């Protein structure tokens, strides 16, 4: 075990840090610290140009294999990239679903033709992706997919009908990957297909969902006999591919997320020091707890990325979501409590939230999306501890 990075990695750190310092200026200056959770819908055009700037610098897909146009960067270097990116306050990645989810899935399961067709657009920052997983009646029961795909017997092409929900950036994306039922009458995780769908077609309608924040980062997406551009793998492979994709989410991006968390905590500490809350013993305990939780989240991630499997395969990965989601939710409440009665005051009418109010409200979704805390505990108990599976009603 050692905590220090080697010389080559430190040089890599200097490279990305100085590149960001040189490029996150001018038209991009005002994007600093923007576009994070709760702010994802802001400045889409400017952030797309930023993606192209990143791509031109060779900073998109650094962890992808060189054969696929990536740099084959080591885990350490990906960690460093994520850290420096967030440290510089570079904006929330509008291309992260393509780079982190769609791309790796196509690399893992796609045909050579599919790779040639989709990967370059991701790597050059011109094509953006959104995801079509959740459905209104499914919730945590991800396999409860009702969206169906029917193959046209003549053309051999698939057409999709159904409804997806909680799709962020749907109106900013050219592409969507969609989980749909290829086998009529099949249930649960059997009989699903993994489709790549072009968003620009009249058979697709995007409807923003107004949230408790008054804003609309998420959407409902309606497919009414929409044409699927491609099927990844075979009909019936959908569940396996989808599960692999979810695994990609537990990647190095968590380190970047943590730098975002650190920015938030820093702001809370700054306010506490200026408004006197820092002398309140209960607040002191909670700030120290938040600080500790965030540091330990980082060490957990480093252990996970280093492949430490001491306490069973995937143990640190299994607890990761529950840990950060609960931590972040508590941070949101802490922010309000540090502000005291000022927590109530908006930036302006009709409902302009301050950054910390937005944090407070948005973090309530962290313990729900991507598997609720309850589902996470089931998974930890069942996969991590070998306890019996929950009985299903169906």
């Amino acid at each position, binding site marked *: 075990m050692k905590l220090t990075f080697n010389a080559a990695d430190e040089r890599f750190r200097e490279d990305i840090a100085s590149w960001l310092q040189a490029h996150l200026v001018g038209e991009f200056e005002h994007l600093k610290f923007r576009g994070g959770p709760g702010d994802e819908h802001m400045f889409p055009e400017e952030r797309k140009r930023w993606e192209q700037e990143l791509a031109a610098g060779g900073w998109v897909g650094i962890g992808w294999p060189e054969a696929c146009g990536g740099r084959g960067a080591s885990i350490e270097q990906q960690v460093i990239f994520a850290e420096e990116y967030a440290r510089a306050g570079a904006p929330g990645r509008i291309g992260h679903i393509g780079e982190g989810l769609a791309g790796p899935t196509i690399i893992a399961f796609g045909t050579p033709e599919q790779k040639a067709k989709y990967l370059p657009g991701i790597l050059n920052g011109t094509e953006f992706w959104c995801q079509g997983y*959740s459905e209104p*009646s499914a*919730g*945590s*029961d991800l396999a*409860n997919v009702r969206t169906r795909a029917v193959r046209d017997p003549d053309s051999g092409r698939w057409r999709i009908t159904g409804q997806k*929900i*909680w799709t962020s950036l749907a109106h900013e994306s050219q592409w969507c990957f969609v989980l749909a039922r290829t086998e009529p009458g099949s249930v649960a995780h059997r009989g699903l297909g993994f489709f790549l769908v072009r968003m620009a077609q009249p058979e697709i309608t995007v409807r923003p*969902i*107004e*949230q*408790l924040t*008054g804003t609309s980062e998420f959407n409902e997406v309606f497919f009414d006999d929409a044409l699927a551009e491609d099927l990844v793998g075979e009909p019936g492979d959908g569940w396996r591919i989808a599960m692999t994709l979810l695994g990609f989410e537990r990647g190095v991006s968590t380190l970047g997320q943590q730098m975002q968390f650190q920015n938030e905590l820093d702001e809370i500490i700054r306010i*506490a020091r200026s*408004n*006197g*809350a820092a002398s*309140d013993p*209960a*607040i002191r305990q909670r700030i120290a707890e938040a600080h500790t939780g965030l540091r330990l989240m980082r060490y957990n991630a480093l252990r996970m990325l280093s492949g430490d499997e001491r306490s069973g395969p995937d143990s640190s990965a299994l607890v990761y979501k529950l840990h950060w989601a609960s931590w972040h939710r508590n941070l949101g*409440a802490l922010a*309000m*409590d*540090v*502000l*005291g*009665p*000022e*927590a*109530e*005051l*908006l930036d*302006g*009418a*009709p*409902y*302009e*939230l301050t950054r910390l*109010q937005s944090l*407070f409200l948005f973090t*309530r*979704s962290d*313990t*729900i*999306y991507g598997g*609720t*805390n*309850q589902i996470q*505990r089931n998974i930890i108990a069942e996969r991590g501890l070998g306890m019996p599976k*929950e*009985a*299903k*009603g*169906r």
Partner: protein
Amino acid sequence: MEFRLTDEQYMVRDTAQAFLADASSSGQVRRAMTAARSYDPAVWQRLCTELYVQAVTIPEAYGGLGLGYVDLAIVLEQMGRKLFCSPFMATVGMATNALLLVASDEQKQRWLPAIAEGTQTATLAWTGPQAARAGGSWGAEAVSATWTATAEGYQLDGDLRYVIDGDTADLLIVAARTPGSSGSEGIGLFVVPASSAGVERQWTPTLDQSRRLANLTLRGVSVAADQCLGVAGEGWPQLQKILALAKVSLAAEQLGVASEALDMAVNYTLEREQFGRAIASYQAVKHKAADMKLKAEVACSAVYYAACVASEVLAPDGDVNIAAELDEAAAMAKGYCSDTVFFNAGSALQLFGGVGFTAEYDIQLYFKRAKASELYLGNGAAQREQIAAMLLDGESAQ
């Protein structure tokens, strides 16, 4: 000793419940939230006419119902359940107590009947801009507006913050201090019609849209000698009691919010299916709901005990031993209910899953109210520190 509602009190509850079911639907709450005054004056007038609960604690001599704080708590609990948007909390839960506690008989005759009739609303304005911090600073040091004696009475100056319904109330109960005084010294209480010259008021938009806050600025506001409640400069003990009673009011409302959040969550989980079962059948969901239920039950005991104590405080012949428990009972009620309302509303939001995060479902409104009322007049930790000081710091403590 009888720690249950009387038949008459059940009637008060049922009447309030029926009225609110009709007057505070989800649609009505949402319209009021974005209305000019944050409540519907017509609904308020209906309440004042049909229920007459704005007069619940006002003695019959001044046109009121002459009931106790328990009856007030019953009404506030029901209003919390429906997030009823109205000047009731400010007028009845806060400002009226100041008049009942401190005003002379002439002063009561002057101001209480209009409140009892529903022709005037009122609020309490006492904390300044630098004062209210996280934790335990909702005390005497929060008073920062000033009063100075003049030939014909007093002049009031300064900024007042976080004033509930301060932009619409007709009558302001203002706390101020003599320039240069600090802590509990020098505090005076004044009745100031909002229309007085030198009063400026500014609505401050809030996270919880179902209750308005405002900033007030007093610039050389002249008030006559008979607008001073009690003795100017010796007002802290009275203000302290008024704030304790306000905590009881808030706690009662929090009980309603917390109980309704529980009921909403239980109903939703009985309907919502996941993995082929109603999610209410999962032990994780049941146990969360059980914890919410426990808190709601205990909160109920806390509120109604404190309300009984408050009744003794307000009653002319109240039991002095019980009345002496006010500070402690109010801190316990506000502390326990603050924790409960945020726990219950937050847990309910979690049990609603994704839809709880949408503007469409009402549970988010309860969640926002929960945080707002948790922080107002000090959260659970602040109340506990106050109780700890009573238990641990005095010479005479146990």
